[in-house]
């Protein structure tokens, strides 16, 4: 019995260390991305998403357990040496300038993916992220509300030198998820599927053969500047890159039977 209690303690600390997940119900929504092959609403299956972005403290715990992801030990193909976790004082020390409860930034897509995988999770897809980030505390889709749009755009007006706040300071949206807007940029699993910027960059390029299949994505909703800025930013990145305000959170698919929530 004592062993059982010990075990359950271990399990609960483990899930605490990794960040809590919240169930996001299935639904349909209109992405700002105009998919040539799928013009209507995007169907989203129910999934679990981390309530908050992964913090410095959580990522430190991860690199302790997985030394191959420590700064200086990670092969340069998986993380740029000059940027990866460069704001930490040392590979295993956050230092005075970095707070444990701030979201971790300066992480490559490979490192973010590895963190999630170690949790039995994955990065959210772009559609999942956009779907969840469209919600405010009362509505699942607040995007048509000018006041809501304004509040999100406010973040972009802040100078880049403003220190990043701790996670969990913003009100939870209707699903109970925080910090999707107004804190950091976040990696998505399929960020590289956003061919949109590659297409824009090559508008004058007659060599269309660069893309196999249908033409690349374009933007649907010209009013959603905030989301479009995210798309532009993500699609300009390579998986090895990291920046001082780019972090991530993880998501989990549900077993098939649970995907259609009521």
């Amino acid at each position, binding site marked *: 019995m004592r062993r059982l209690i010990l075990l359950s303690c271990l399990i609960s600390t483990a899930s605490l260390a990794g960040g809590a997940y919240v169930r996001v119900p299935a639904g349909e929504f209109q992405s700002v991305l105009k998919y040539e092959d799928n013009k209507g609403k995007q169907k989203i299956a129910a999934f679990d998403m981390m309530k908050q972005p992964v913090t410095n403290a959580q990522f430190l715990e991860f690199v302790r357990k997985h030394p191959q992801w420590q700064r200086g030990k990670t092969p340069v*193909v998986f993380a740029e040496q000059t940027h990866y976790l460069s704001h930490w004082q040392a590979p295993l020390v956050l230092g005075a300038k970095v707070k444990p409860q701030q979201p971790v930034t300066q992480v490559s*897509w490979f490192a973010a*993916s590895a963190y999630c995988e170690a949790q039995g999770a994955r990065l959210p897809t772009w559609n999942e992220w956009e779907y969840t980030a469209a919600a405010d505390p009362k509505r699942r889709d607040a995007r048509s509300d000018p006041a809501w749009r304004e509040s999100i755009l406010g973040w972009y007006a802040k100078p880049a030198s403003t220190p990043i706040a701790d996670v969990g300071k913003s009100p939870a949206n209707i699903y109970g998820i925080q910090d999707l807007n107004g804190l950091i940029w976040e990696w998505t699993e399929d960020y590289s599927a956003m061919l949109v910027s590659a297409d824009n960059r090559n508008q004058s390029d007659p060599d269309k053969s660069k*893309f*196999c*299949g249908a033409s690349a994505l374009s933007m649907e909703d010209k009013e959603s500047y905030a989301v479009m800025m995210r798309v532009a930013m993500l699609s300009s990145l390579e998986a090895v890159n990291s920046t001082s305000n780019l972090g991530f959170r993880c998501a989990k698919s549900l077993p098939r039977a649970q995907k259609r929530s009521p």
Partner: protein
Amino acid sequence: MKKILFALLFSFALIGNAASPKPAPLPGDSVLQIDNVFTNQDGRNFKLAERRGKPQLVAMFYTSCKYICPLIIDSGKGIDNSLTPDERKKLSILLVSIDPVRDTPEALMYIVNKRKLDTTRWTLSRTDEKGVRTLAALLGVRYRVLADGEFNHTSALILLDAEGRVVARTETLGSKPDPVFLAAVRKTLAAK
């Protein structure tokens, strides 16, 4: 005493090394470090690290693709045809499918036969979804699954040196090789 201990430890380390010779680790910028399992057209599993030691061309494709993907194979053949027999022997070619659902070893073998590819030098392979995503990220290949199961992807032929480092890439496809890329292939083969 300390010295003796040290010497002892040192000799143990030497013996340990002699017993199990370990190859030098791959350089940090080697793409071959990807840990995912791949499967070739014969159904044999392998890791990319096993392909160390020989320069290679790598591209991502899928067998049911009608337009660009045949061009990717043409491009590989175009390079082959521009090389001397000696140069050819030193180069291998790896195509990796971005369509794990449909591209079984049988589907890959169908293309091998249809395009009469020499499997002593050409390998057509598949991996799981995660492997596809990771390799695509390493090679800077962008792709997206379309609603009808087709793919939208950037097409590139990438040259890796014997250690798996990216030396050159071209997005000019077709049977007539990109001259700058071909020169890079020649130079890399000569270096080995």
